[in-house]
C-alpha cells in the first residue's frame, strides 16, 4: 500500500468536497429560514459569476466589480422574494420548489441573454499549483477554497445562533404563522436571506469559475450539492460542510481504488448511492432536525 498516495487521495477528496459544500451552504441558508428548497441556487451561482467577470472584463477593478455584482445579487434576491415567493406564502413545499425550478431556467436564460454565451477565464490571483509536502501534492487553490468555506460557516453560525436576526430567521423557518403573530416581518427576513444567498452564490461562483472557467456548466454544480444536503441534513450549515466532505471523499476513494476494476465513471453516481443509503438509514441526514408534528 502506497500510504503517501492514499493520504494524497484523502486530502484531495476532502478538498473536492469543500467545493460542493460552498454551493450546498446557499441551499441550507434559504431552507433553514424559509423552508424553501431553492433549486435556482446553481443558476444564481452562474448569474453571479457571469455578471462579475463581464463587469471586470469591461474594465471595472476587481473590488468594484465584486461590490456591484453583490448589489445586483441582493437586488435579484429581493425581487425573487417580492415577485415569486411572497404570493406563495403558506403554499405546500412542492409548490415553492416548483417555483424555484422555473426560476432557475429564467435566471439561466437571463444570464446568457444579458452577458452572452462565451466562456470566460477568471483569474483570482491564486495559483492553482500543488504545494509539495513530501510526496503529497495539495492544491493551493483548494486550500484557499477550504478557508473561504470555513469563514462563511463561522460567520453564518455565529449570526444564526447568537444574534437577534438569527433568532428571527430560525423562528420564521420553524413556523411562519407563529412568527407573523409575534410581529416578525417575514418579507424582510426572506429578502435578507435571499440577499445573503446571493452573496454565497457570488463567492461560490467565483471559486468554481476560477476552476472551470465561467460558463453555463456552473449551473450544473447544483446537482452535486443535492446528495450533500441529503447526507448532511437540509437545515444544517455544519451538515453542508460535513456532507460535502463525505461526498467528496467517497467519490475520490471509490473512483481511484474501485473505478479501475469496474470501468471507471463511478463519481457520476456514487454520491447519489450514498445519499440513498442515508435516506434509508437516517432520513434527516447527519445534522438535520427531525420534524415533530401534532396529529
Amino acid at each position, binding site marked *: 500500500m*502506497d500510504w503517501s*498516495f492514499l493520504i*494524497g*487521495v484523502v486530502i*484531495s*477528496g476532502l*478538498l*473536492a468536497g469543500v*467545493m460542493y459544500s460552498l454551493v450546498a451552504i446557499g441551499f441550507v441558508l434559504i431552507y433553514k429560514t424559509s423552508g424553501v428548497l431553492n433549486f435556482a441556487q446553481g443558476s444564481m451561482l452562474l448569474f453571479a459569476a457571469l455578471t462579475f467577470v*463581464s463587469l471586470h472584463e*469591461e474594465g471595472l477593478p476587481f473590488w468594484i466589480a465584486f461590490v456591484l455584482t453583490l448589489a445586483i445579487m441582493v437586488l435579484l434576491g429581493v425581487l425573487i422574494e417580492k415577485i415569486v415567493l411572497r404570493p406563495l406564502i403558506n403554499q405546500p413545499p412542492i409548490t415553492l420548489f416548483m417555483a424555484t425550478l422555473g426560476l432557475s431556467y429564467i435566471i439561466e*436564460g437571463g444570464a*446568457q*441573454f*444579458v*452577458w*452572452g*454565451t*462565451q*466562456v*470566460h*477565464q*477568471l*483569474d483570482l490571483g491564486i495559483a*492553482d*499549483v*500543488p504545494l509539495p509536502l513530501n510526496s503529497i*501534492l495539495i*492544491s493551493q*487553490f*483548494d486550500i484557499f477554497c477550504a478557508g473561504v468555506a470555513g469563514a462563511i460557516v463561522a460567520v453564518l453560525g455565529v449570526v444564526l445562533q447568537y444574534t437577534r436576526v438569527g433568532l428571527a430567521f430560525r423562528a420564521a423557518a420553524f413556523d411562519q404563522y407563529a412568527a407573523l403573530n409575534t410581529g416578525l416581518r417575514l418579507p424582510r427576513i426572506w429578502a435578507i436571506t435571499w440577499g445573503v444567498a446571493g452573496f454565497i452564490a457570488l463567492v461560490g461562483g467565483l471559486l*468554481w469559475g476560477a*476552476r*472551470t*472557467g*465561467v*460558463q*453555463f*456548466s456552473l449551473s*450544473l*454544480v447544483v446537482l*452535486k450539492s443535492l446528495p450533500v444536503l441529503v447526507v448532511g441534513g437540509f437545515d444544517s450549515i455544519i451538515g453542508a460542510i460535513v456532507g460535502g466532505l463525505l461526498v467528496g471523499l467517497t*467519490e*475520490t476513494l471509490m*473512483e*481511484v481504488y474501485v*473505478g*479501475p476494476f469496474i*470501468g*471507471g*465513471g463511478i*463519481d*457520476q453516481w456514487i454520491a447519489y448511492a450514498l445519499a440513498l443509503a442515508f435516506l434509508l438509514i437516517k432520513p434527516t441526514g447527519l445534522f438535520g432536525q427531525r420534524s415533530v408534528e401534532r396529529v
Partner: protein
Amino acid sequence: MKLRGTLASLLLATAIGGLPLTSHAQTPTHQQYFPLQSYRVGPYAAGGTGFFGGFIDYMNLINTRDGGVNGVKLTWSECETQYVVEKGVECYQRLKSHVPPPSAWNPLSVGIAYAMIPDITADKVPLITIDHGRTDSTDGAVFPYVFPLLMNPYSETSAIINFIGSKSGGDEKLGSKSIVVLYHGSPYGRETIPIYQLLAKKYGFKLQQIEVPDPGTQQQSQWLQIRRIRPDYVVLRGWGVMNPVALKSAQEVGFPADHIIGNVWSNSEEDARPAGNAAKGYIALTTQATGTRYPVIQQIQNIIYKAHQGNMSDPARVGSVYYNLGVVNGILNVEAVRIAQAKFGNHSLTGDQVRWGFEHLDLSVAKVQALGAAGLFHSIDVTCNDHEGHGYITFQQWNGKEWNRISDWIAPDWAILRPIIEASANKYAAQNHITPRVCSTEEAAAN
C-alpha cells in the same frame, strides 16, 4: 453591457417556432434550403454559436458576393436544440417538410446525428457529421446518406498516435511509451476505446483509458490515477467544461501541458483560455487552421461584417476554431450543391440530389486554394466507399493567447483503419437488414 441584439432576435424566433431568419423574394425553385439545428444557449453554446455563425456567414457571403450558387440563393432557418437529443429530433420533425426541401442536415451533435440516421436515410436527405459521428458511416456502401466529412474518430485516433510516435522519435519507439486516454463519459467519448486498444496492441505501448463523467467539473480522482500511472502522454478526448478542468487538474498534479494531446473537440479557444497558465504548451489536433489570414475569412470580414450583416455578436471570434470549422463546413455544403447542380441543373435540388453532390465532392489542394481557403484545410475527396474523404489533420499548440500550428498535414493509417471500418459497417448492415451498395459497379455505371 453586452446586450445581444442578435441573440434576442434568435430567441424570439425560436420562441415563436423557429421562423426562418432570412427571407428572399425568389420563388422556392431558386432557393437551396438548409435547416440548422443550432445550439446558441445551454452548456455548449460557445461551440454552437461559433460553428453555426461561421456556416451562416459563409452562406451569406455566397449570396452577397456571388448571388447564390449559380443564381440559386441559399436559405436557412434555425431551430434551437441546446445540444439536447430530443430537441434536435423535434427540430428535424418540424423542419423536414420545409418547402423547398432540406438540402442536408448539419446538427454538429453525435447524439442527435445517431438519432436521425434511420429517418434521414428513409427521407433520402444527407446527414453531415463533420469531424464526428459514427466511424463506420465512413463506408458509404452501408451508410449512403451519412457523411463524416474531413475526419472520423478512428482517423483522429490514428493521427494522434502517429503524432506521439513522431514526437518520440518514430513509431518503433512507441513500444516503450505509456499513454492514458482521458475520455468524456458519453457515446462520443467511448467511440474510440476499441481502436486505442488495437493500436496499443500493434505498437506495444501501455494504455489506460479513464472515463470522466459528464460534465467533468471535478476530475481530482482521475488525475490522481494519472499521477500514479505516470504516463508519457495523456490524450484528452473531452467536450465542453471537461477540457479546461482537465488542464487545471493536470497542473494540480504536476503533469506537463505539452504532454497532453487534445482531440478535435478539445481544441478550441474555449477549451484552453479558461485554464489560464495551465494551458500553456497544450497541444491539440484540428482539421482546419485558425486565424483570419485566409482570403475566404477576409472576404467575410470585408463584405459581410463591414456591412453589419455578420452572424457573430462578437466579431473578434471570427477566425476562432469553431468559427473556421463552420466556414469549412459551409464550403463543403456549398461545393456539394455546386457539383450536384452540374449534374441535375441550376435550380433547387432535392436532398437526394445534394447527396450525390457530397458523394462526388472532390476538392484538391488547388481547388481549395481557388476557393480562398488554402491552408485553412487540406483537401477532401469523397467517394461512394469513403464518405470521410482523406482525413488530413494537423496539430496546434496553445501559447497562452492563441493556437499556433506545429505540424504538417498528417494522414491516418488507412491500412489499419479500413478493414475495421468495413467490418463494423457490415455488422451494422446485417443487424439492420441493409443490402450494401456495390460502389465499384455504381462508379463504373456513372463513368
